């Protein structure tokens, strides 16, 4: 069973705490596998302490632009989140899925590839880099944390978001490839709700879960 929370614009830290509570509840088997979908205000997140080296401007410049800088406990290095980007945080118990992290990552990639196909875009994988690519450009980033085989964090799909902030960093520490979005590839904006709908359906499909419609999706913000 998959429970889905669709939150709106949510601060990164708040979302992380929400995930922690869901994760602990999942460990106690009080909740089923859960997918949280949301957007973040303009935020740069660092996966590693030395990710500062991938920052191409200084921190004052970020503040002036209204971009937060946060250190996170997910895998991967530096990336940017912002409005117009669909962020998904699956809280999934991998104990029931063969305890295979690589397979989980591949399944996340598969979900996003299918979602892109729903919008006539051809996404793919890269042998050397986790994530989803269209041609040589990255359209979705992935970074996960696992505690006792339950996942948190997940993926970020560039839909309508501004890509300018990516020029302030080497995204994910990769220095020789660009980023793209559905807006750039299609030449028009997509409805984020429509994209989220497809994410939910494809996620349930790839992970072989039935959707639980019993809970309304409100982030118990505190």
């Amino acid at each position, binding site marked *: 069973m998959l429970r889905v929370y669709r939150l709106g614009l949510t601060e990164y830290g708040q979302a992380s705490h929400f995930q922690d509570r869901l994760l602990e509840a999942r460990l106690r088997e009080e909740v089923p596998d859960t997918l949280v979908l949301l957007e973040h205000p303009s935020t740069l997140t660092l996966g590693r302490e030395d990710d500062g080296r991938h920052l191409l401007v200084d921190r004052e410049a970020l503040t002036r632009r209204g971009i937060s800088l946060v250190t996170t*406990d997910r*895998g991967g290095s530096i990336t940017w989140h912002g409005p117009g980007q669909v962020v998904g945080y699956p809280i999934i118990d991998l104990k029931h899925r063969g*305890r*295979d*992290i*690589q397979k989980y990552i591949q399944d996340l990639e598969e979900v996003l590839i299918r979602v892109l196909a729903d919008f006539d875009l051809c996404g793919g994988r890269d042998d050397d880099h986790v994530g989803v690519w269209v041609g040589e450009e990255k359209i979705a980033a992935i970074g996960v944390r*696992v505690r006792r085989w339950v996942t948190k964090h997940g993926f970020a799909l560039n839909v309508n978001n501004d890509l300018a902030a990516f020029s302030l960093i080497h995204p994910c520490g990769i220095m020789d490839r660009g980023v793209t979005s559905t807006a750039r590839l299609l030449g028009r904006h997509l409805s984020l709700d429509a994209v989220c709908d497809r994410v939910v359906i494809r996620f349930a499909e790839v992970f072989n879960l039935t959707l639980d419609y019993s809970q309304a999706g409100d982030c118990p913000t505190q």
Partner: protein
Amino acid sequence: MAREINIPKLGMSMREATLVEWVVQEGALVNQGQVILIIETEKTKWEVEAAAAGFVHILIPADPDRKEPVGQVVGLIAESEAELKTLQAEGGVAAGPAKAEPKAAKAAAQAAPAGGGRAPVSPLARRLAEEHGIDLAQVKGTGPGGRIVKEDVLEAIEAKKAAPAPGPAPAAAPAPTGEASAAETIDGKRVQATLSLKTGMRGAIARHMRESLAVSAQLTLTGEIDMTEVKKLREKLLQQEDRLGTRITYNDIFVLAVTRALRDFPIVNASVVGNEIKVWEDIHIGVAVALEGQDPYSSGLIVPVIRHADRMSLAEISKAAKALAAKAREGKILPDDVTGSTFTLTNLGGAGGGYGFGTPIINQPESAILGTGAITDRAVVRGGEIVIRPIMTYSLTFDHRVIDGYPATLFVARLTELLENPLLML
């Protein structure tokens, strides 16, 4: 006895991970289950928890640019402060900050090995030197206070590469000990190959065997079983191979017999946990599988587990055993496949040594292990006459803390009875 902290295998194809961060300091006292280390693989951070309470001794510092292979021992958990001090004296990261400092400015001088007068060495440099067979005494340190740092060792490695070709490559993939020069000689004996006893499969087996003998009171009961009826049964079952969907082996029949005997004598299906003996409800049979190495001197051993073997039919046991053995040989075994056994079977007779006995070592934390020998035709006495029968030897090693001699004898007597009268297993 110190517990290892290894890079866990978190999936079928996982080969390696990065040590992101030691969450505790060197020497910290931790509880069982406490997160002590973060590793990363495939853009995923994983929290490594302490398998036991104790004092953490770090062997390999965090380094985001280095990948460690699955199974690599990256630290130890000492049972006591005394043991911790012993481990610290042996090397690894000494008291100091948990994260790697490539400049080695903060690494304490305690990291130096026994043998005075040596320049201090950064933990990263020490590890690099070990892996590449560099003698630190020959390396000039350019760090603060003449400290030998990573760059110094890297230079020494380059210099060595310019020298004559190295000797044979070490066996077993994870962390080979380094190249021996073609003419390595110790006490007048030339070295053909060098294998690591600290890392990889050899290291794991070495530790497991030594610990097993240290922790339990092991002794071995040996005997013979008349396999006439089993042989007949097996021949009939081979004819039914298509119907059964599998080719029944002697080992499959042994697993079946053992599960029946364990049900009758559950004390043999038990483990020492802390200060108690846990008599298990479930019967999970480990079946030892020998793995061939890439070269004549490296072989390995793995013990995949047939879970709930007592609930299985002979055909099901056979299929499960074959599937596990195939997985083992293809290197596709998952951690779940090799843990949780309550009793182990090892076939000592398959390699063609003829009639004989052994003293197999218990697969901790179990309390007994049954080694079956070759089946050979022997002259035996039946009804006052000498006849020839197919005889199999067995060797049951058991832990006397848990099982006394009498129950052990009753167990093997039951096993013998079942194998000599297979219809009793129905």
